[in-house]
């Protein structure tokens, strides 16, 4: 048998005349973990969809050679029969079915259509222990488990299909650090068992940890393949390949920092969980942000940062909220989102597709949505000309790449969608902006542009709060940061004291304190 389990030769795929993939060549060695890197829209997912039969033979040109034979997949079933299984970013689990049922979804343990439940449960249990979920109850509905476990169940499901080549598309995007680490260890373990893996990820530190080789795709072309031990695996090196130039500084320099008075303050902020009035979710939070300052809220996923922001912003999260919000020195009541907007507070939510944008509507529609009442209407009648003019102004100002402001937001790339959300809140003329994961899932170039906007906002004297799970981002953009852990402020760092180690140290110290108290 050849050294390569998979060779994709000269793959070209067009979407109505536009080449998404142009003469792509990919060679995967048996038993290795290969990472595919590239900016958003580079063609990574398209390539994997070609491989797994989502785009059937005939819709692309080129050859897929798998285990030495040329394959012509007509659908996913065909590729799965050969042992190629893809796990998409959006999990394909049926939420109300049990774990066991999900593990064998589409691959039922059945004779003549009648399911053998004993075998289903027993086999599911075995598969689960292979992915590190020993002793998990296979009879509970899958939606009662966390995202991390669901991701592992997806892998168990793949293993149940006698998978030889496992493709993981952004498997850790929704996981916290601990779960991510667990998943990466599992990948290494599967490698030991002889399973070949292809991973697509934006998290370059994970890739350099886990991958044996890295293939870089840019604008639908394969640029290069880096081998572990032979080539440089550093993040800088990978980024250079992805963007085609050296990005020496991933964070733009801030100039003319002028920090003024405190314009945003939280005093003794306490919130209880919306589903459980006994659960004290946010405890005694006190924080201040000054004009012209960029302040981070660092912490692990689930620490309560998004919840904090949403509880302040029109009480959109939690119950039994107590404490005081001061904007420009005045105590304000932010009982609704409209109140918050009227008091010049803006919250750019995480997950722009679910909470930020109306995808079917235009760039213009979305940009003006929050400011419609205050700035774009008189007596309830919308001033459409003003809308067009201002939307066009912001399109140019923050460089949204679109044909016109009439284009549907859903057709834009992630980075440009994020810019539209930013514009939407900048148009409400806020004094205080809370940006929740402002660069999640967008490519390096767009990230840089978003950071530039943050700097501009600070320069204009706004108070900016950045919530981010990527510590380098906090370090690169913020003047000062609060570290949040378990719904409490675990520490505060500023200037050059903000380092990855210092943030983690705050979290660890806080965890220990919690344990002692408990």
């Amino acid at each position, binding site marked *: 048998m050849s050294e390569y389990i998979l060779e994709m030769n000269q793959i070209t795929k067009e979407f109505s005349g536009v080449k998404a993939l142009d003469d792509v060549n990919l060679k995967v060695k048996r038993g290795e973990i290969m990472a595919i890197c590239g900016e958003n829209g580079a063609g990574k997912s398209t390539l994997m969809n070609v491989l797994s039969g989502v785009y059937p033979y005939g819709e692309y040109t080129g050859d897929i050679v798998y285990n030495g034979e040329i394959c012509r997949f007509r659908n996913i079933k065909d590729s799965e029969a050969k042992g190629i299984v893809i796990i998409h970013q959006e999990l394909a689990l049926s939420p109300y079915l049990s774990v066991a049922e999900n593990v064998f979804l589409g691959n039922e343990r059945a004779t003549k259509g009648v399911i053998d439940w004993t075998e289903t449960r027993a086999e599911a249990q075995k598969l689960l222990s292979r992915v590190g979920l020993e002793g998990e109850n296979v009879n509970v509905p899958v939606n009662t488990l966390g995202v991390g476990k669901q991701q592992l169940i997806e892998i168990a499901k793949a293993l149940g299909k006698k998978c030889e080549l496992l493709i993981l598309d952004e498997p850790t995007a929704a996981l916290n650090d601990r779960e991510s680490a667990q998943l990466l260890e599992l990948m290494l373990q599967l490698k030991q068992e002889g399973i070949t893996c292809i991973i697509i990820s934006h998290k370059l530190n994970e890739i350099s940890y886990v991958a044996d080789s890295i293939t870089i795709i840019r604008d639908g072309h394969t640029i290069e393949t880096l081998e572990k031990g032979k080539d440089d695996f550093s993040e800088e090196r990978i980024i250079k390949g992805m963007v085609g130039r050296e990005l020496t500084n991933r964070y733009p320099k801030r100039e003319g920092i002028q920090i003024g008075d405190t314009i945003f303050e939280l005093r003794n902020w306490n919130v209880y969980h919306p589903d459980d009035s006994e659960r004290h979710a946010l405890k005694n939070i006190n924080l201040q942000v000054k004009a012209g300052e960029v302040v981070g809220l660092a912490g692990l996923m689930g620490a309560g940062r998004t919840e904090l922001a949403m509880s302040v912003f029109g009480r959109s999260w939690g119950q039994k909220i107590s404490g005081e919000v001061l904007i420009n020195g005045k105590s304000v009541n932010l009982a609704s989102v409209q109140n918050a*907007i009227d008091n010049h507070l803006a919250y750019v939510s995480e997950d722009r597709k679910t*909470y930020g944008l*109306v995808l079917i*509507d235009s760039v213009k529609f979305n940009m003006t949505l929050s400011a*419609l009442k205050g700035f774009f209407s008189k007596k309830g009648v*919308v001033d459409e000309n003003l809308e067009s003019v201002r939307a066009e102004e912001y399109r140019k100002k923050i460089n949204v790449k679109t044909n016109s402001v009439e284009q549907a937001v859903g057709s834009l790339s992630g980075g440009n969608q994020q810019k539209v959300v930013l514009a939407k809140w900048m148009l409400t003329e806020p004094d205080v902006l809370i940006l929740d994961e402002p660069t999640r899932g967008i490519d390096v170039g767009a990230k840089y542009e978003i950071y530039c906007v943050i700097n501009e906002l600070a320069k204009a004297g706004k108070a900016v709060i950045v919530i981010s799970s990527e510590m380098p981002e906090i370090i690169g953009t913020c003047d000062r940061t609060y570290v949040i852990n378990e719904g409490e402020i675990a520490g505060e760092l500023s200037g050059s004291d903000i380092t990855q180690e210092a943030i983690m140290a705050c979290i660890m110290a806080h965890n220990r304190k919690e344990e002692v108290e408990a």
Partner: protein
Amino acid sequence: MSNKSLKKASLNMKQYGMMIMLIVVYVFFAILTEGKNMTPVNTNNLIMQNGYVVILAVGMLLCVLTGNVDLGVGSVVASCGAVAGTLIIDFGVSAPVAMLAALAVGAIFGCFVGFFVAKLDIPPFIVTLATMLMGRGLCYLILQSQTKGPLPTEYTWIGTGFLPTWKIMEENAAINAGKGIDLICLIVAAIAVAALILNEVKAVATAKKHDLPVAPIWQLIAKNGVIGFIICYFFYKLACYNGIPVVLILMVALVAIYHFITTKTVAGRQIYAMGGNAKAARLSGINTKKVFFWVYANMGFLAAVAGIVLSARNSSATPKAGDGFEMDAIASCYIGGAATSGGIGTIIGAVVGAFIMGILNNGMSLAGYDTNAQKIVKGMVLLGAVTLDLVSKRKKK
């Protein structure tokens, strides 16, 4: 004109697809019935028969924009008619008071649905299924399963009446068989066309002022030419009959008001935003509960208006009135291009959808098909229109 800018600003023909379909259906039946559907009296019937469906479709579109429907409107139509009829016949109440009472009943129904939908978060499908059953039962109770009539002319005027006419050329037997032509109709048509042209000129001027793209002039002339022709044709037919029906005035006023609300106001924008993505709308400062409440309260009110028009036209209140109207109204919205998922659709589209169905019904009756065959065709048209719309959208992607 350069090719590029033409592409950028060209009128979106899909937007007018249903309008073209309306004309095609009309012409088709004109041929099939040898012109019977084009007579002045039938033109008038088209308006009077479809007035209430159009009124319901306008309200229903708002529900459809939120991604839901209101199944209860047929029953509310009947209940409101029943209340007005009973008050007039059994209690001797004057027509205007009876109308106000009917409107109040409709509004109460609407607020009732709105309360459950917005405040208690009960799915609209369930709540309106309940009002459908409750409304029908209530209507039978009020009327004691009997038909109440005849209603006085002050009441029926709104469904069957006409504006005053000023007939000219009655002495000329060559024109309209000596029945004369109503000058008021012609004046209204002239004003409408003038307003249409003025509006377009103004829109082009402001677009140019702000440096926004403008569609090529021939397209604008073609579009307004067709619309202008339809207006003139239509009013000429009415002029040859009894003049302008009161229902037409009511209908045009409601369509204009709701078109304005949906396209030009903050409230309208909020409905679209909520239908497109309720979570994002909420975090953008939109009180989605309030929007939900008013959409359903408004539907109840408009169902009452339709109930009054229907009972006025029939000159009686019957317990079976409005049966299946909810389906006609919902179908009108979807034929007019609204999306089942919410956030997409226009008032004009819903009105065009209602008239496509109206012309179909009317044309098939004139051609001698029975009502059962009409239902089959209506079902096919609904399925065909939505399939065509969705498939063409998918291809574009």
